[in-house]
């Protein structure tokens, strides 16, 4: 069957808005951005938010610098990758796995950081965003430009929903830049840090009122720093807190002097018996029989049926259950 003869040209901008809107609905983020660059009128039309689906914006400070635009449920993602290789300019890659489509486009520039900044601004403008959904930063790449990149983000991005912090080399000291980032970028929901902080007295302040805080290499974390945390979920991959410190923390929690929003804490104790003996020794607690099953909050915002555990009670009546599982030791508040 003969496919429709392709119309070679068409004055799209002269169509009624409702028709253009229908056309936009079938376009991917790259096509939308390319379209917006056609003319001032095209840009004005493109900026009408109702013309397309809501996209999630993800800026990546890594090598290569990236801007990701995720469609609904992440089913379709468009990635801009900055490159200093002129031959790659404009090249596209498309990958489909399990129904998820990823399209990548290379953008050449001699000054990839500046080009990335300009494109970040343009993407924010076109998709009418003042906040971004995800910021990923490798703290030990573009070290010399790190402050200027953070300043750029501070100026152009009102807040970041989720911030992922990485470092390539475990031995690289990223403390200062991590502190600067935490001081200058407003993170509203989630922080995931794979940073190897070197200084036990790390001066960086984690954002308040978080939903999730994952510190996967937190051996540097001390008692005072623990008290500063304000998050619904706290996952610590290690800590330097003594048993006495944990004892004091539990007492403060019971007295409602700290971590009022806490619903889940994941720490690295080995067993409930050890925890009872070393931490809860002078704190009233109840060992719940293994036959008692309760649905409790666990990591990744999920709930699971948990058998037994050890309960402590806060002065307002809230209960926290300590549970030891294969690779986690949870304090689940209910």
């Amino acid at each position, binding site marked *: 069957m003969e*496919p429709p003869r392709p119309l070679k*040209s068409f004055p799209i901008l002269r169509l009624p808005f*409702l*028709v253009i809107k*229908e056309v936009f609905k079938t*376009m991917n983020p790259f096509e939308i951005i390319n379209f917006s660059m056609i003319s001032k009128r095209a840009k004005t039309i493109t900026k009408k938010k109702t013309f397309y689906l809501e996209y999630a914006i993800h800026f990546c400070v890594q090598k290569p610098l990236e801007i990701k635009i995720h469609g609904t449920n992440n089913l379709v993602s468009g990635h801009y990758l900055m490159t200093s290789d002129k031959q790659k300019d404009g090249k596209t890659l498309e990958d489909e796995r399990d129904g998820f489509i990823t399209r990548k486009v290379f953008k050449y520039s001699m000054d990839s950081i500046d080009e990335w900044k300009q494109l970040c601004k343009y993407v924010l403008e076109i998709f009418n965003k003042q906040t971004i959904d995800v910021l990923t930063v490798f703290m030990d790449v573009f070290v010399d430009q790190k402050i200027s990149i953070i300043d750029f983000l501070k100026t152009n991005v009102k807040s970041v929903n989720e911030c992922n912090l990485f470092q390539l080399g475990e031995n690289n000291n990223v403390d200062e830049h991590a502190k600067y980032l935490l001081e200058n970028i407003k993170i509203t929901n989630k922080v995931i840090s794979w940073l190897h902080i070197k200084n036990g007295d790390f001066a960086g302040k984690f954002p308040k009122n978080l939903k999730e805080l994952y510190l996967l290499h937190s051996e540097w974390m001390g008692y005072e720093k623990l008290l500063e945390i304000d998050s619904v979920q706290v996952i610590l991959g290690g800590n330097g807190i003594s048993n006495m410190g944990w004892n004091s923390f539990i007492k403060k929690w019971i007295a409602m002097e700290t971590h009022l929003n806490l619903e889940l804490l994941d720490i690295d104790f080995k067993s409930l018996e050890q925890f009872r003996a070393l931490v809860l020794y002078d704190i009233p607690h109840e060992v719940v029989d293994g036959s008692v099953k309760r649905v409790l909050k666990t990591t990744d915002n999920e709930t699971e049926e948990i058998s037994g555990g050890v309960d402590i009670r806060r002065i307002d009546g809230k209960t926290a259950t300590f549970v030891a599982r294969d690779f986690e030791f949870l304090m689940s508040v209910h």
Partner: protein
Amino acid sequence: MTSPASSSEVKYLIESSEGNTFDVSGAALRQSNTFNAMFLNIGADGPIPFTDYNEATLKKVFEYCEHSVNEENYSGPKHQDDLSKWDLNFFNEMDQKMFIDVINASNFLDIERLTSYCCERIARMLRGKNTQEMIKVITLPTAEELEAKQKVEEKKAAAAKKVAEKAAETAEKTETLEELPVQQLVQTTRNKLTRKYLSFSNE
């Protein structure tokens, strides 16, 4: 000829921009949400005036509606690859102008299926294209063409300015001759006469 549409047998008269009228079945017309909102329940006492669109366009649109009367209810956009042979022929027969007219009419009449197919067809023209390629598709002038156009316009403007200046100059001269104040004219004449008189008396 027109009555509230409860049966597909009912025919309606449609009037085009040329003032011509033609029949369309109620079943076909009911695919238009605009028609449903305006006439379905109350009927119409004469030809329904869709006079923003010419006869050829309206006939093309309602040809589509008549054809799809028996198709299953519309449930969202259908991919072009799924179009039937009849649909393909329907779109292939249209040139650009007719296609634009059909989209506009379909949009006004709010015929979801036809509008959606047309939009999908336009979107295919842009698929996978960069900005420069899109410019060619949507028939916008390129930067070079814009520059050339601007130069021409600048030349025209300069020429027009010259003409205007010349005209203003001419007008000024004419004004000097034609609109010399009457008193001044009288005085000039009087001076001439006085001189004449004096010279006469001296003689």
